[in-house]
């Protein structure tokens, strides 16, 4: 059902945990739907120097979170904003159609953390104008 890449990230998820003094924290999803992702970012001079996640969810939710953290670590905010759910899914060698919402959730978790960072620091991030972290990713099916 899952690609070897998904299973590998599920077995050995990267960047699991919390950052106590994170500059941006975002949480998306809801326990009713069976998936919640929480993303922690450490940002220095516009660069994401560290990232951690915690996820309640299925195998692909955990693998998507793990992959997403790898894709934004060391990147600038602008580069992180370009990490789409499609890119996350492709990096995992694809997800089953019913699991695509997991990659949507991963994209949203990054954006939610960036939004939190921008609000705390009162700065503007291009592309977050219409972002709603409470939007239900299941509608993206």
């Amino acid at each position: 059902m899952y690609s070897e890449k998904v299973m590998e990230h599920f077995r050995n998820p990267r960047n699991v945990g919390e950052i106590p003094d994170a500059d941006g924290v975002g949480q998306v999803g809801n326990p009713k739907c069976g998936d919640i992702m929480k993303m922690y970012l450490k940002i220095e001079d516009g660069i994401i120097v560290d990232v951690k996640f915690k996820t309640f969810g299925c195998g692909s939710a955990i693998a998507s979170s793990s992959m997403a953290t790898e894709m934004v670590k060391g990147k600038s905010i602008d580069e992180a904003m370009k990490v789409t759910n499609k890119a996350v899914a492709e990096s995992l060698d694809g997800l089953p159609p019913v699991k695509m919402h997991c990659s949507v959730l991963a994209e949203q978790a990054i954006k939610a953390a960036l939004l939190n960072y921008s609000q705390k620091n009162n700065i503007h991030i291009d592309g977050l104008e219409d972002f709603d972290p409470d939007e239900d990713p299941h509608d993206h099916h």
Partner: protein
Amino acid sequence: MKNYIYMDNSATTPVKKEVLDEMLPYFSEKYGNPSSIYSLGGKSKNAVENARDRVAKVLGAKSNEIFFTAGGSESDNWAIKGIAYANKNKGNHIITTKIEHHGVLHTCQYLERQGFKVTYLDVDKYGMIDIDELRESITDETILITIMFANNEIGTIQPIKEIGQIAKEKNIYFHTDAVQAIGHVKINVDELNIDLLSLSAHKFYGPKGIGALYIRQGVKIHSLIEGGAQERNRRAGTENVPGIVGLDKAIELAYENIDEHNEKLIKLRERLIKKVFEKISHVRLNGHPEKRLPGNVSFCFEFIEGESLLLSLDMEGIAGSSGSACTSGSLDPSHVLLAIGLPHEIAHGSLRLSLGDFNTEEEVDYVVDKLVEIVQRLREMSPLYEKVKGEK
């Protein structure tokens, strides 16, 4: 210990060697069509009729009340649609429960689209129906009560005798999906006032693709499969002779030592439940503490999701199942877990381990040890667990 631990015996079971040995000659040696008049056909015919006698005997029924089908789903479809269509001049109301197998549930929903009315009875936190609610839901239009013998997910065994008694008093047909119960529970259709009963061989160490429907003599029912004159004109199609032979042997084995079999399973089940409760916090047992299938264990582990749990168990060589949404391909967790009142987030963390004849105490202990590790690992990853950890 085996390198693969199979604890999903409610999903299916391996075909026992004795069963397979009985079946094999019917593929390439005794391959005759039971409807043929020559002796090769006669051998097949005899095998089919012997199996029918055996199933009848196990159920306390007559041989002419047993009809072979392709399995549980066909039996359920036949019973429910067949009764509905044959008795619609009498009424259009069917009573069932919210926790039926999809073979029953979706058939009832289909009939609703055809204009029938269906009452889906609630269940309590143990998955048990309320007999008074059943009694009150009966109307002059009620033609069928279809209630499962034992639940496939949480193992709860319904008060079948009381249900049968009510159905009999009210002159309403009573069908029970006994797919999970056959092989584990002694069933006498007369004592329990059952009019129709579905069973499937692969749940008790027989082959897949073969089952039966018991239909009490005199019950007014339409056919589901039209065609040849097989099964006394009621179920067309050349008989699955090797399958029927397999069902015969499997049901014989299941009932020849059923007490011993159940005693062993209950011991394993209680060991598993006890150890999990000793070693893991924030866990609940789904289903009834006593009135449950001997081999059924169903847990909900809070703060984690069932599919992750299953994948992790599989990586350790352990097979189980879950009612989480992620394993069903839908967004909602199992209708059974929701019907017993579990909130969505708890239902997502369900795990069913169904024990069988080949499981051992050693395996149970191994599975518990692995569960402790896996649940801990997934909880450490879960944002829902942070708060609880903080409270410790």
